[in-house]
């Protein structure tokens, strides 16, 4: 595993964020190439991404400050700190999605083609996220005796970040090499179902799962629900596509 060691030393925190930024840039470039195939202009695609990122950044910081109001009232300038840890990730995600949704509505963008156009970006971001996990040593695996185990945090562990990387690479390949003549929404739903399926399977090898109901891994439950919704939606778009 010398390459993994080299990668981890090159992109150790906080440099691991460079990987995510590179994935964002690459993903957006690839999404632009395919946008017009889905009837979405490059400009609309770029705008929806930039506004969502802006919403993500501002929402994450403002919601964190609001939920820790007393700490910020003691030192209001902290609101402008460069510390990325002063951030509410869930709030950021919700705000980013909301801003993207509102922009899409105002520009009268059709939801399924827009999501299809954004799918290459999502798929490349998933690859970037797995590499960022690898660099930071987060999303780590459970201890194991398998020959391909990786030394991390003072134990030999399942290289879950590598599993995640391989799965996201395969999912990207599946999306990128798909046929054109499929109903709108298919690319996004295939991505959502495959990503949820991969998470459902791979979470079992993680050593940092959040548990609920006496040992059930919360991420698996969420992934199962997303998988079910994606399969249901995919059936629904196929039905709607059929002539009456």
């Amino acid at each position, binding site marked *: 595993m010398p390459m993994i060691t080299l990668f981890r030393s090159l992109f150790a*925190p906080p440099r691991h964020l460079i990987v995510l930024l590179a994935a964002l840039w690459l993903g957006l470039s690839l999404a632009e190439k395919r946008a017009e195939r889905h009837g979405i202009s490059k400009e609309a695609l770029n705008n929806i991404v930039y506004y969502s990122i802006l919403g993500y950044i501002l929402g994450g910081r403002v919601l964190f400050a609001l939920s*820790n109001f007393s*700490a910020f009232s003691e030192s209001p300038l902290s609101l402008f700190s460069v510390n990325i840890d002063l951030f509410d990730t869930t709030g950021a995600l919700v705000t980013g999605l909301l801003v993207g949704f509102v922009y899409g509505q105002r520009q009268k963008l059709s939801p399924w083609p827009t999501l299809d156009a954004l799918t290459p970006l999502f798929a490349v971001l998933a690859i970037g996220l797995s590499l960022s996990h690898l660099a930071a040593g987060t999303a780590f695996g459970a201890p194991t005796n398998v020959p391909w185990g990786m030394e991390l945090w003072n134990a030999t562990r399942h290289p879950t970040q590598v599993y995640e990387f391989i799965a996201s690479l395969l999912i990207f390949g599946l999306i990128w090499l798909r046929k054109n003549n499929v109903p709108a929404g298919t690319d996004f739903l295939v991505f959502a179902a495959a990503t949820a*399926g991969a998470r459902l399977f791979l979470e079992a090898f993680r*050593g*940092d799962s959040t548990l609920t109901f006496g040992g059930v891994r919360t991420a698996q439950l969420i992934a199962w629900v997303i998988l079910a919704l994606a399969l249901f939606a995919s*059936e629904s778009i196929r039905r709607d596509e059929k002539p009456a």
Partner: protein
Amino acid sequence: MQPTQRRIIYSIILLLGFAWILASMDKSGSSTAGKIPAPQQGFLAPDFELSTTAGDTIKLSDLRGQAVLVNLWATWCPPCRAEMPAIEKIYNEYKDQGFTVLAVDMTYQDDPAAVLPFVEEYGLTFPILLDKTGEMGKAYQLKSLPSSYFIDREGIITEVVIGGPMAEALLRTRIESILK
């Protein structure tokens, strides 16, 4: 593929998925974290024993029961310098509630003669430890300075902040969380 066939396949996928969730349940309470010492969130903070600038010796595990901020720094590091006043301020605010700071100077890559003037310049009142051999830095897999570890009363790392300077609000939110 016919819609009926597809629905059967989808149902099988979901049933298998659910079976996998049950099969991969972790009844042991999962996470190896909390038991194995490692410089990562959720793990037991690696123990160390170092001498202070005052000539005393401090062992991290002796502070079990207190909330601890372990801050790795050096005199030549600008963000380390920038965050020291905030750490000093917060230390004075919370020390009576069972909070302490262990500021470990990476002496093996610093000028030892510069440490005391630095402490005086910033009026630091918390313990300043000296890592003369680099062993503590190695145990904490030090990659960049400053690096900070928030440790709860059970000795578990609840948050790692690599880089700086840390904002006062960040210190305050994390310390209030580990003091609970």
